[in-house]
């Protein structure tokens, strides 16, 4: 199942991750776990940079989903960044569209569009809209209104079945998003139509917009809900690449019913003051907070400067922002 060839047409799914570059389209296939963690670290960095530059956006859910997206885009999806419209590509539908910085960053790192675009996020004229919108290479669905992605994914998967195509459809959902009844309409219909090429992944970070999910709207027992709606349920650590890849493989092997992976994650993962903090669901860090965050994600001033350069930041801003980082 694991595949990172850049020409997805010939892609074969191979069982174990090997190695890839963390920049741009991988030149070598199948990164190993350590490399995946490196990639994810770079993704987190660029999520933070693009949101800080935008001055608004949703860091919490972008950081919690980062490992899931890295696992998908580097090891699981059959896709071709040079041909986003390839009919047989696997589809990743981001239903929690506010967390698009995670998706944009991953797409940029895989070469769907220049990394420099990331610094245009949310700005007038940019194709990187505040909520993901079709038209951006690699973006499969317009989002921003919660609850619609799983239904869309059912439609995509049904079309694939009609056409005799073998692509798989993945839908990434928020846990707060599961409050929307439409998610359960979609779940019921996917089971009814036995759409086993469909995999839902719930980013179970236990926080929604205002507060913790258990405070706003209790979701537990979430696994029992999906099971009762006819789905195979896998519950895993959503920051563990071995667990993610195993579950994604199990999903591929499931026949006759759709699979949901409940990925236990930490909202704001990687940044101490964002972790488990509802305040950073939808608020951009200040440049001071960014500096601290980049340090926590494990970047030196020099590395941050290089990354900012790649993202197209002007020299002055690079100097200003990285200057706020601790020495070394």
């Amino acid at each position, binding site marked *: 199942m694991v595949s990172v060839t850049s020409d997805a047409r010939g892609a074969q799914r191979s069982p174990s991750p090997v190695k890839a570059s963390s920049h741009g389209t991988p030149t070598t296939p199948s990164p190993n776990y350590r490399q995946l963690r490196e990639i994810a670290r770079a993704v987190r960095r660029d999520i933070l940079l693009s949101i800080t530059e935008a001055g608004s956006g949703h860091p919490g859910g972008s950081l919690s989903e980062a490992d899931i997206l890295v696992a998908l885009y580097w090891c699981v999806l059959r896709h071709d960044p040079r041909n986003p419209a390839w009919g047989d590509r696997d589809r990743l539908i981001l239903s929690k569209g506010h967390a698009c910085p995670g998706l944009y960053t991953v797409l940029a790192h895989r070469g769907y569009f220049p990394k420099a675009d990331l610094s245009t996020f949310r700005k007038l004229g940019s194709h990187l809209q505040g909520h993901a919108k079709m038209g951006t290479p690699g973006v499969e669905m317009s989002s921003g209104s919660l609850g*619609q*992605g799983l*239904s869309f994914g059912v*439609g995509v998967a*049904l*079309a694939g079945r*009609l056409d005799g195509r073998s692509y798989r459809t993945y839908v990434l959902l928020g846990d707060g998003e599961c409050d929307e009844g439409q998610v359960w309409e979609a779940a019921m*219909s996917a089971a009814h139509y036995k759409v086993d090429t469909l995999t839902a992944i719930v980013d179970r970070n236990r926080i929604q917009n205002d507060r913790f999910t258990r405070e706003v709207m209790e979701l537990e027992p979430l696994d029992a809900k999906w099971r009762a709606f006819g789905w195979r349920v896998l519950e895993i650590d959503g920051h563990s690449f071995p667990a993610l890849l195993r579950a994604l493989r199990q999903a591929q092997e499931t026949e006759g019913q759709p699979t949901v992976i409940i990925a236990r994650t930490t909202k704001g993962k990687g940044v101490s003051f964002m972790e488990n903090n509802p305040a950073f669901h939808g608020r951009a860090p200040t440049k001071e907070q960014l500096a601290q965050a980049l340090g926590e994600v494990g970047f030196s001033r020099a590395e941050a400067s290089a990354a900012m350069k790649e993202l197209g930041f002007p020299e002055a801003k690079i100097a200003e922002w990285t200057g706020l980082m601790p020495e070394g």
Partner: protein
Amino acid sequence: MVTRAAAVTREVFGQTLLALGKENPDIVAVGGDLNVSTFAYLFGREFPARFFDLGPAEQNMMSIAAGLAFSGKIPFANTFAVFGTGRPYDQIRVGIAQTGANVKIIGSHSGITVGEDGVSAQAIEDIALMCALPGFHVIVPSDGPETAQAVRVAAKERGPFYLRLSRLATPVLHADGSSFRLGRAEVMRQGLDLTLIACGIMVAAALEAAETLARTGVQARVLNVATLQPLDREAILQAARETGAIVTAEEHYINGGLGSMVASVVAQGYPAPVEMVALHRYAESGAPAQLLAKYGLTAADVERAARRVMTRKGK
């Protein structure tokens, strides 16, 4: 032009969809447990693999339609007008209108002529809703032949379409295969004293009113505005210029429908007196003909509005 023949527009839809299904394998249908009423079952019976009933779960239906459309299918989403517009509005807006998805929404049982089911089932706001979506094609056919053509045009032209159909049989006003042109109003009758602008079932009422008016020497032009969006502004302005007085007639609430769009065109282009025949409140259960009479949507109401606008015209 009015003949004695009648046809049920939703049935014509079902038959046309069936025919299209045979011609184009990409045509699929999604439904909301009302496929007998919408006649989409004709397609479903012939092409079970291309037909997805989602039950009464209209939000899911619309987003699934969007997913199908962006995977190369041409989905016809069919249900009652109320359940195909207001219920899944946000899904239509974000998933279909803002993306320009190639989805065709068929809303049957529109207006108060749904009759006995009562207000919850009577869509009197769907034109306003769908015309509030930039880029959405909104079509209200006046009879069977026009419906057949509109369904074919919707299948052929890319982009989102809403077709508003009726429960009851309506008089056949057009010859088969004639007339419907997307975005173009149709002059059903010439006249220079005033113009009656109508859509849907009110076109027949307008024609009837025009005949009555003609008997008293008033020559009314009758304009069938089957495409509500994009609107044929030029035909409306021409009517304003050439006849100087307009009556609009629609089976819809007074706000946001044909009347207000015609008023916008003339106020922006060529100010002229307009009278509107439309609904001013929710109706109730009852036989369709009774409701049309009680709530003011008959040929006589159009005629009265015509007389009112004629007295204003001079001033």
